[in-house]
């Protein structure tokens, strides 16, 4: 078999699990929306059509940096079938942050719907609505744009020089002030060190490549209300930002997300089409559909931030770290998006993982360039920061003659140490993951067969670790809400604000509710993805959905259960504390064979109408941490530079797996993306023109089914967190983080070549190999 899952549940339950155990949570039923997905009946944004619907498309800049001198739209408007053409002159002059994180100082409002200046190749500068997609294409060619090309800058270091072209008029093209962490005295820390290590690390520009290109359909009613069917992770944020930019109140914007084809963080942002589509629909008084092509999803989408990190650490005689100094620069492209946020998270993450709390100095900055926009992407800042840290830790171990695993176990953070968010860590999750993985693969017994054999094919193992917060606290004050309504027949509608971008949110929520209420999954219908109907939720990101949103469901279900028991207490004439709810019936302690069906409590009888019971849950936790360690075996062909990942052992400590198969699915998918980041995936921008060179799946290489290695997934539940539902913590982002350094460290073990830049392409490897 190609894969296997091992689920290990030790004894501690901390009272988070019912006395008689779990019956729905901690099992892996098929996803509740699965039938729709396997039969082709699941509707995604682009599947919606309406009578009279028009199609919209964006005209994109052919310059990376240019002032728009004049746009002549008369020829396009004259084309039969064209219904509207809009430019910056027709769009609201309202700056927005493009990205949904309210109440957070880190977002920078630097985008107009359509600007008078193009800041990257592909920046949208005009848009058309027409009766068919064919006419759209023709109309785009008929729009005449006079550009005044401006000098452009693509390298983040160049962009900070005094004579660099200014992209947004900020000093040195910085997005905002530096993010700084200082603890103790870093100079003193280096003075105490026996050895000092310093290195430069760099990560590429991978793209999320969600399979569903961005799409939306907009429709206004005559009363001035907009409904938008969109592929977004953050329906309420789309509502908020559209409301702001269009100048209409929140209740006049309804955002509907039925199914979405992945997002991986990037679909937190509003892209230009959502605004443009709403404006075109308002102007034409007809529904408008906009679908990005795959090329547009690259050009006008969001990549991961390329980051350069200079990392310096001191190592004492006793094998402990004495100081850490970091400078981190992120390249955010033409607009800020999450530039400041990922820089801050990268800095906070690199402050932790290995104990160095006393002498620490970290500075992070984010820089504008004329590249396509970098935004939020699974592993937000952590992927880059931990690649640098985990690579250097390996270098330090090798240089000091200590086994890399032992070196890690000696320095890794554990129970009570400071986490990235400066909370005290709960549990020795990292050490447990490292030990469990080492045991599974036989770390100490492994044959280091790489460097000494005479074959050009060299094999080696490497390890990488990570820890990740469940939720975005303290950057965001976490909050989720759920409403659960019991119908007169005892069935339940569970109403959640969370989005299901494919991860299994609906199933997780239904499992938690079913567990609490003692009913089957079939008796629960989840209602989600409609801002007119569901309670507020900030969105699906930051590995927060199970931890924060699942917690809200738990509270709502308990609230409903309380009401049911109160009703039963009256009917059975039995005190509350003597009642239990099991498989849809309430039993009194002294009469275990009788009891009353939940349905009979709410159905009404004898002239009394049915009752509607509503449970409500609001959850505002702080943060919990999940932990992980990946062990990867690679084979390097030192003649052609090709690197194959042969197998991966992935160990994750997540407190409690609500649905173990769904958890394993997150881990396996994260590993696929992480292998891509490490070896092949890089969105390449021409350094002279800013033109993207590989905006397609043929030229941008993701791992395919044939490329994936064997994966053994080990899910540990050693440290359930009291603030998570049944002790559960997040898993969404964790698995993409440690695989990269594990691969890089394995390449070192196999070949003696230390790769400090991702992706490790054959060209880069061969160059480094020749120099060694």
């Amino acid at each position, binding site marked *: *078999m*190609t*894969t296997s899952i091992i689920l290990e549940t030790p004894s501690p339950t901390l009272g988070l699990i019912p006395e008689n155990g779990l019956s729905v949570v901690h099992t*892996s039923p*098929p*996803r509740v*929306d*699965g*039938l*729709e*997905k*396997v*039969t*082709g*009946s*699941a*509707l*995604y944004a*682009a*599947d919606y*059509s309406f009578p009279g619907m028009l199609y919209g498309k964006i005209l994109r800049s052919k310059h990376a940096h240019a002032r728009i001198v004049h746009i002549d739209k008369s020829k396009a408007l004259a084309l039969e079938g064209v219904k509207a053409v809009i430019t910056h002159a027709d769009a609201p002059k309202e700056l927005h942050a493009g990205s949904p994180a309210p109440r957070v100082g880190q977002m920078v409002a630097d985008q107009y719907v359509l600007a008078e200046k193009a800041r990257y190749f592909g920046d949208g500068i005009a848009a058309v609505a027409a009766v068919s997609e*064919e006419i759209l294409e023709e109309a785009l060619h008929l729009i005449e744009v006079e550009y005044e090309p401006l000098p452009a800058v693509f390298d983040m270091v160049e962009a900070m020089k005094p004579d660099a072209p200014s992209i947004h008029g900020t000093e040195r093209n910085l997005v905002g002030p530096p993010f700084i962490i200082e603890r103790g005295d870093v100079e003193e820390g280096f003075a105490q060190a026996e050895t000092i290590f310093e290195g430069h690390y760099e990560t590429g520009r991978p793209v*999320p*490549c*969600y*399979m*569903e*290109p961005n799409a939306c359909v907009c429709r206004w009613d005559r009363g001035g209300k907009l409904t938008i069917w969109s592929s977004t992770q953050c329906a309420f944020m789309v509502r908020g930002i559209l409301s702001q930019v269009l100048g209409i109140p929140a209740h006049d914007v309804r955002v509907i997300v039925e*199914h*979405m*084809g*992945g997002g*991986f963080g990037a679909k937190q942002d509003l892209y230009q089409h959502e605004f443009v589509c709403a404006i075109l629909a308002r102007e034409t008084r007809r529904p408008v559909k906009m*679908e990005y*092509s*795959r090329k547009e999803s690259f050009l006008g989408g969001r990549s991961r931030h390329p980051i350069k990190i200079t990392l310096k650490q001191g190592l004492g005689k006793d094998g402990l770290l004495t100081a850490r100094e970091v400078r981190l620069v992120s390249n955010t492209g033409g607009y800020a998006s999450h530039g400041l946020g990922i820089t801050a998270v990268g800095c906070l993450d690199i402050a932790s993982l290995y104990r160095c709390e006393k002498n620490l100095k970290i500075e992070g900055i984010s820089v504008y360039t004329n590249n396509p926009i970098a935004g939020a992407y699974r592993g937000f800042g952590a992927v880059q920061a931990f690649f640098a840290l985990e690579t250097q830790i390996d270098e330090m171990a090798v240089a000091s003659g200590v086994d890399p695993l032992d070196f890690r176990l000696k320095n890794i953070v554990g129970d009570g140490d400071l986490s990235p968010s400066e909370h005290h860590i709960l549990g020795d999750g990292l050490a447990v993951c490292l030990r469990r993985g080492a045991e599974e693969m036989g770390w100490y017994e492994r044959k280091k067969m790489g460097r000494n054999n005479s074959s050009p094919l060299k094999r080696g193992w490497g390890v990488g670790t990570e820890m990740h917060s469940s939720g975005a606290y303290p950057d965001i004050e976490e909050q989720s809400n759920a409403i659960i309504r019991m119908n007169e027949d005892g069935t339940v509608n569970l109403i959640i604000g969370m989005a299901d*971008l*494919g*991860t*299994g949110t609906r199933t997780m929520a239904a499992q938690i509710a079913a567990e609490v209420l003692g009913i089957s999954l079939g008796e629960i219908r989840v209602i989600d993805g409609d801002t007119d109907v569901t309670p507020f939720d900030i969105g699906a990101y930051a590995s927060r959905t199970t931890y924060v949103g699942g917690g809200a469901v738990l509270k709502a279900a308990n609230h409903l259960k309380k009401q049911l028991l109160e009703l039963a207490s009256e009917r059975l004439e039995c005190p509350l504390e003597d009642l239990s709810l099991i498989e849809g019936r309430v039993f009194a302690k002294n009469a275990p064979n009788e009891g009353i069906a939940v349905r009979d409590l709410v159905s009404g009888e004898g002239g009394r109408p049915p009752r509607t019971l509503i449970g409500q849950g609001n959850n505002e936790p702080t943060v919990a941490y999940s932990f992980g360690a990946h062990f990867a075996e690679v084979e390097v062909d030192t003649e052609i530079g090709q690197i194959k990942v042969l197998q991966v052992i992935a160990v994750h400590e997540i407190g409690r797996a609500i649905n173990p*198969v*769904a958890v*394993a*699915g997150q881990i*396996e*998918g*994260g*590993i*696929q*993306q992480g292998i891509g980041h490490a070896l092949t995936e890089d969105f390449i921008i021409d350094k002279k023109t800013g033109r993207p060179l590989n905006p*397609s*799946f*043929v030229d941008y290489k*993701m791992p*395919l*089914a*044939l490329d*994936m290695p064997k*994966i053994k997934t080990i899910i540990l539940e050693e440290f359930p967190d009291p603030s998570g539902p049944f002790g559960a913590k997040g898993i969404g982002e964790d698995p993409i983080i440690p695989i990269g350094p594990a691969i890089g460290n394995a390449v070192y073990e196999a070949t003696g070549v230390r790769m400090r830049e991702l992706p490790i392409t054959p060209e880069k490897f061969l160059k480094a190999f020749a120099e060694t």
Partner: protein
Amino acid sequence: MKHMVSTIINGERRELAIKPYRSLLDVLRNEAELTGSKKGCDVGDCGACTVILDGKPINSCLVLGVEVDGSEITTIEGLADHTAPGAPLHPLQESILQHGGAQCGFCTPGILMAAKALLDETPRPTDEEARFAIAGNLCRCTGYTKIVESILSISGSEGAL
């Protein structure tokens, strides 16, 4: 100028008026109102639009609608027994559900059609044959492991669970 095309889609004869430059994918999604086949790239790179045309899996975005006159097409909507309403799922659909082989579900219709074409020809594929059959179907959620498991477990192949 439209051309009339007569074709059998999921067992039902359809007479469709098609512009000569429309892809089969656009025809299926619009003229035939079958939105199960997905447009992930429109240039034959991703496989989300895979349908079975006269017994062979094809990227429907790379075939012109006017080319299918007289042909027989099966789309995801016709994978289960389309002649009987309420009929059980195709074993592949059931298996994807049971193994967690669908996450966002956008690639799932194409994967299922490619896998059906594989099993029609090779009822007991090896792990490598299963991976080869879906090598043209991109998935960004699952890492493919659960998809391959889904295919192998119903075929009773070596290495199945």
